[in-house]
């Protein structure tokens, strides 16, 4: 059991590039949950990265997460104005982060890693009520800590599973936003680029 793990580990630090494609499930928290509390099953992250050495890699993480919630007919009061109707709430989040990762030695074939993302997220919050739309769009600075694990299953292909806490600082019309994410997908390692 230890020999294959060692081989994978030795193989890993000889690789220079990787690309991950991950499907995201996200759970809103904080102000985001106040606006809508439904778990989002519509998310995608693409993350190309370069390995600086066997332990550290630097990459870019870009994604798209769609939150949606239908609110039953209700009254919304603002001063002397009251609106009553069905609301359809959407958040489209497009995160773009610089993401260094620290890769731990493989354990029984599993390659754990921890990472941090620092960057910005374009957030489009839309509320449709009746025939009217109320929209707030902001570029929000933020970060995410991430832990994950990769498991090689075929040549340079790895199954990848990770968890993230996405935090976006309030700006303009939007207060601080946050959501937890569970990401699953594939990571492909590009070997032999050192020759170029």
């Amino acid at each position, binding site marked *: 059991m230890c020999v294959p793990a060692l081989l994978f580990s030795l193989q890993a630090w000889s690789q220079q590039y990787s690309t991950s494609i991950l499907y995201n499930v996200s759970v809103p928290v904080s102000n985001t949950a106040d606006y809508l509390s439904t778990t989002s099953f*519509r998310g995608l992250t693409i993350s190309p990265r370069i390995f600086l050495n066997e332990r550290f890699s630097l990459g870019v993480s870009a994604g798209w997460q769609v939150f949606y919630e239908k609110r039953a007919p209700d009254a919304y009061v603002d001063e002397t104005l009251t609106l009553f*109707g069905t609301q359809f709430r959407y958040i489209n989040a497009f995160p773009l982060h610089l993401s260094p990762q620290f890769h731990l030695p493989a354990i029984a074939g599993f390659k754990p890693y921890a990472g941090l993302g620092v960057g910005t997220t374009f957030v489009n919050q839309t509320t449709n009520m009746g025939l009217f739309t109320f929209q707030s769009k902001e570029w929000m600075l933020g970060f995410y800590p991430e832990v994950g694990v990769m498991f090689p299953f075929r040549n340079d292909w790895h199954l990848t599973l990770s968890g993230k806490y996405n935090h976006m600082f309030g700006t303009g019309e939007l207060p601080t936003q946050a959501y937890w994410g569970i990401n699953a997908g594939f990571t492909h390692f590009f070997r032999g680029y050192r020759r170029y």
Partner: protein
Amino acid sequence: MKTRLTAWLAAVSCGLIITLQGCYPGGPEIVGEYDLVATSYDRDFDFSRARTFLMPDSVIHLTPGQVSRAYDPFILQAVASQLRARGFTRLTEGGNQQADVVILTSVTGNTNVSVWQNPYDYWGWYSGWGGYPGFGAGIGPGWGYGYPGYFSPVTVSAYRTGTLVIQMVNPNQASAASQTVPSVWVATFNGLLEGSPASIRDRIVQGINQAFVVSPYLGGSQ
């Protein structure tokens, strides 16, 4: 090898994005989910003292022909019924008693109309109603409605829709100088003019009822 992998990754990415786009969440699925009721009121007006109302027996059609007049009796009946249920007494026109408030109803449909952007221009006096002779100021044709203080009128634009506006004005504080009558409560019901006449009628009545439900101060409780 590199080109093939890059192409494969690009294809997978595009496929996932298209899949995400395909399952992008929708919106309203039935006509009633587009219905919107909006109300606003003058917080300085003492609704608990308003006990009588006068209401013309016609609905103003701001865009003639766009909304069927078959709904008019149901609109008038629903509004009067709701006011009575909140303790108001309806006075008849030409009577000697002065009404505390006057209720005016109007509809518009199927055009892009900003009803409340400039109410003074848009709202002429109801031409089918001669005036309110019980008051010294002689409120009548040529007058408009005023919105005192921070009472912001509701803005509603209509696009292939129908909009019902119910307006409560206070003829006792009419201004002869500006020739305006203060509006103390306004309710609008906006929705698609789709479906059978019976379903549209039912939605209109439900909208009227809801406008009163979200305006409990009309019953005297602030």
